[in-house]
């Protein structure tokens, strides 16, 4: 199974309880806080994560990002699937 097949466009990704995105000046930007772990989120990841509220589908998130950043939808789709898959594997995201 390739990565793209693992997340459906209709999935409603959301950060589970105990996983939070926060901005911290001293640490230089966006941080994803999780049980006993912290991850630095680059600007693109942070934009994706801000949209993982459980209220919208992954397809809608991709559309929104493509529109907001005026970028090719296909590339955005690849980036989003890659990030969400790796987070779901680490139990940092619910689908």
């Amino acid at each position: 199974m390739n990565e793209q097949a693992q997340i459906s466009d209709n999935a409603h990704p959301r950060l589970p309880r105990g996983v939070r995105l926060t901005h911290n000046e001293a640490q230089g930007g966006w941080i994803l806080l999780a049980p006993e772990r912290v991850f630095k989120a680059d600007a693109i990841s942070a934009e994706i994560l801000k949209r993982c509220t459980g209220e919208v589908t992954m397809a809608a998130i991709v559309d929104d990002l493509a529109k907001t950043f005026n970028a090719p939808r296909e590339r955005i789709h690849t980036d989003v699937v890659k990030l969400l898959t790796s987070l779901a594997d680490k139990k940092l995201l619910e689908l």
Partner: protein
Amino acid sequence: MAIQDTLPNPLGLLAELTHRCPLGCPYCSNPLALDQRAEELDTATWARVFCEAVGLGVLQVHLSGGEPAARRDLIDIVKTARDAGLYTNLITSAVGLKLQTLGDLADAGLDHVQISIQDSEQKSADHIAGYDGASARKRALAAEVVRLGLPLTINMVVHRANISRIEAMVELVLALGASRVEIAHVQYYGWALKNRAALMPTREQVERAVRQVELLRAKHHGRIVIDAVVPDYYARFPKPCVGGWGRRSLNVTPAGKVLPCHAAEVIPGLEFWTVREHSLGEIWRSSPAFSAFRGTDWMQEPCKTCARRDQDFGGCRCQAFLIAGDARAADPVCHLSPHHALVEQLAAAREDMGFSYRHS
């Protein structure tokens, strides 16, 4: 000041709220001389410490002990930590923490709970904890954590008395509904050092356990996160203790002393500052104990010119002192240490004696 530009920002604060604990685990990392209740910091001081920690860049607070639920103001402490902007992690034995209190803690914004288990077999688990019925209470509290929708980590401490049941323990962790498990081989400090001969597994047991953990990781990938702490007496290289001295974390004792790691008080001659007299920022930047082994200038050979010196930071300073008698020496678990033979002797000095419990 130039040094402030190059100082790292700490990420984590270990807040030891109290040394009081109903359990007596023989591997407890608390010091042999415990802080007394009358010396404990009050709620307002902890609130101030949390705010100062956030100012330094700290992201997560680990509320620990002892048993943090022994503090009657635990809910207020969690609330103030969350208000300060910290991710709050409660590290509990589950004994003495009422289900109702857990609900109140969740309402106060608690982010995550970590519960320790001692074994998959209840009788053995209670024996190790030195507390009849501890295992049943832990299972009940774990169920309540899951019911409340809080993420749960189970910490299982591994040693000679339970190392053959790692697989069964992971099955138990899955049944409890945890999303993460820490398989932590005993580290020999505090009470664990006192009980070392009774706790130390054999090399064959450790190697088998390491292989088993790899298999379990593959088997349960995506279902549960398995983090494992390698038993360092059998390692080739030392662990990068606390991510480097004075680099990533701070530890505040019940009485308010600030330590670079929880065992640091065993090293003679270090001057620790307390939050009763200084701000956390002052302590991080200027206290003699934090400056003592920060960076690489303090190193001797073989660390000084070692290619791994910025990777493992010479290992653990406390272990260097405890085994080699010199806190500036290479951690003797490193095979390059001139004292490495001592570690092999200590690992071989196993003895089937009873545990020495901290409350007996």
